[in-house]
């Protein structure tokens, strides 16, 4: 059969779904804009600089890769998304070369060197972040309090998770009380919202929300740029899920397993017994939600198939818990995803139970 180029373009089906890889990446990027805006409100100029340098570095790296491979790929949106995700994992005020190097590593080494979009077996953004953690551990763990909380710019403080990790055992106090004791201020918004929720909703369920959680959710705490806008991240996740752009099974299984384990075994805080862990503190602190919906569910580096996705998500949830509970650093979620990225071929095979005669198919 003679297959000219014209025939290739005109093969059925002639209509398509609205989704394209490029649209998916651009929509993902767009949902991160509120996150960037909120963190910029919280941290001011230093946040804006980090967001912009990360995205610019990602674009430059992608352009360089395009030039090397003679394939113009800036339009597929994946570079911008990688840049945004790297910025989201940066602490506010990280020196400019940290996001730049991370983005360059992510795009050039992790993505382009393996054959570009679709061929990378690790999530580029996460690999870039891990690169930064390995290279500049001090810069990556130097957090500041948002302007509203401290009153002035640049007051250094540990993140709530790191702080909680540092709490010695034996003290029989709740983590929130300990945070207050360590002079983490409680914002007026937290007081008002918590009071309102307690009066209107929780009192009827004979429950009570302790002070401090609202501050964690709206970002009035030290943390990476992406963590500070938990509400915006949640909103973006809802958009991604409702447009069916990500594999919902992965974040669901991951959060369920993580929450369950945190409840069962505690987060390592004093004052927690077995079966009484502070799951809410564990879930709202750190970048768990962002990683779950934007990085673990990244299609390229995750498995295909419902069963495989559930297994993959559950494994990430369990691993993140182990890393965070007993590991050296609080940000174990990123490493959990990277570890599971490597095992994707095995997970797919285990889940589908397929046996191929010669070798495996990744």
């Amino acid at each position, binding site marked *: *059969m003679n*297959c000219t180029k014209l*025939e*290739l373009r*005109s*093969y*059925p*089906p*002639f*209509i*398509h*779904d*609205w*989704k*394209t*890889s*490029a*649209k*998916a990446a651009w929509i993902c990027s767009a949902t991160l804009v509120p996150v960037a805006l909120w963190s910029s409100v919280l941290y001011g100029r230093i946040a804006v600089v980090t967001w912009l340098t990360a995205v610019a570095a990602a674009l430059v790296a992608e352009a360089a890769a395009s030039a090397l491979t003679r394939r113009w790929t800036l339009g*597929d949106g994946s570079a911008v998304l990688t840049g945004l995700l790297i910025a989201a994992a940066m602490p506010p005020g990280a020196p400019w070369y940290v996001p730049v190097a991370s983005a360059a590593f992510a795009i050039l080494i992790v993505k382009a060197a393996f*054959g*570009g*979009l*679709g*061929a990378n077996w690790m999530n580029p953004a996460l690999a870039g972040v891990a690169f930064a953690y390995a290279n500049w551990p001090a810069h990556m763990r130097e957090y500041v309090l948002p302007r509203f909380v401290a009153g002035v710019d640049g007051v250094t403080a540990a993140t709530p998770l790191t702080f909680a990790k540092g709490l010695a055992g034996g003290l029989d106090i709740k983590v929130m009380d300990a945070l207050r004791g360590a002079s983490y201020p409680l914002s007026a918004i937290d007081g008002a919202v918590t009071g309102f929720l307690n009066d209107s909703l929780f009192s009827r369920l004979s429950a009570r929300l302790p002070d401090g959680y609202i501050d964690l959710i709206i970002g009035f705490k030290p943390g990476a740029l992406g963590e500070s806008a938990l509400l915006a991240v949640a909103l973006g996740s809802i958009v991604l899920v409702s447009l069916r752009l990500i*594999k919902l099974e992965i974040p669901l299984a991951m959060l369920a397993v993580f929450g369950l384990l945190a409840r069962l075994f505690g987060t390592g805080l004093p004052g927690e017994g077995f079966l009484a862990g502070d799951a809410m503190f564990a879930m709202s602190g750190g970048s768990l939600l962002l990683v779950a919906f934007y990085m673990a569910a990244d*299609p*390229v580096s*995750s498995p*295909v*198939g419902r069963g495989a*996705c559930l297994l993959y998500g559950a494994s990430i949830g369990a691993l993140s818990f182990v890393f965070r509970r007993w590991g050296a650093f609080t940000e174990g979620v990123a490493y959990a995803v990277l570890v599971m990225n490597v095992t994707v071929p095995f997970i797919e095979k285990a889940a*589908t139970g*397929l046996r*191929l*005669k*010669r070798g495996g*198919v990744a």
Partner: protein
Amino acid sequence: MRARGFKRGGVPVDHRAPFKTGPIENAFLPMNAIVQLREHRCAVEPIPVVSVGQEVREGQLLARSAGKASSNVHSPIPGIVRRIETTRTSGGFDSKAILVSLEGSFSMLGKRPERYLWKSLNKADISHIVQDKGIVRVSSGEPLYEILSERSDAPGFVMVVSALEMDPYRRTEEELLALRAEDVVDGCAIAARMALPARIMFAVDERIEPATLEPLRELAARSELDIAIQPFRRRFPQDLPGQIAEAMDIADPGTLFIIEPSTLVALHEAVVSNKPHIEQYVYVGGGSIKRPAILKARIGAPIGDLIEECGGFSGHPETIVIGGPFRGRAAADLDAPVTRTTRAVLALSPEETKSAPERPCVRCGDCVDACPEGLSPYRLLKLLRSGRPDDALAAGLGRCSSCGSCSYACRSRIPLVRYFDEARQNEVRR
């Protein structure tokens, strides 16, 4: 009755393009009719019985069937045979075509149709008429007498009269059920006399108008046939035999004989009105057509004429498709002729095709969710691209029905089904 549907995958086709219903109009007669002799890639070519320069009447035999899958071909218009030559069809294979220029007087148009009482005819008589008049199954192009006699050798099958048109455009078969229900049920009785099905099932869309369904139900009850009317969910590819069987919990799709109302109308006209298969109901539509309509067109009419009759283009169409949007073929140009298998001509706008540059697979899994056969198209493609067609076959490539759901869903616009078709063609050749 509860609507049935296949169990997994598929593409939702909830929205139907706006369309004005009404009586089906006759298209103008073409000045030149290009009559293709073969409807099918595998058909033996019929032998022309006319010569260049010869005058032909409307409905006169142009070529005689010459073996498997070939059928008699008649002149759709009165005129003069101008050329007999081999051309490339829009289906991608070569076929001899006879060009007839309009001239002389009409013998059928405007004349009161003859009406024979077919009930006195026996199976052999009917079979002879169907063969003589060159009736083909509109959905596949196979000669009707051939497939009906094959079926009559193996009784116990279910005859499915399928008015399922699972795409956002066509509704010719539903319109025929509404406008010519009597002829369809009568045609059904004729086919049943030839092939003796165990039972007959009318497969209709779940959202069919009650005004269409009720008279049909009455006619079915009044006929002496065992006719059931079964609604099906509107989801592509519900119209494929495999998916109809799956929805009906029938293990072997081979026990279904699927025929569409338009074929039954042609059959009815052949037996009752002595009319050869020279007309075809064509849905002309798509976002780039001004006034979508169903036209009763003569075989051989250029599709450009039909488009003009529907008000021409609005905007610039990206592709012109002959047949459905999922499984049809792209028309090379507007001179492509209507054949006995041309069920639709669609001029699709860029908003409908949503074409985009092909990109590498991003493993989103949308193709896996779309496949009605439960295959993993992305994996099959990977196996084929790494030169392992045997492993692809072991992974289920043979079950692929080329429905195109995976290509429809693919975010990276990879023409998956094209690779699968080619791989299977190579397999056959080996």
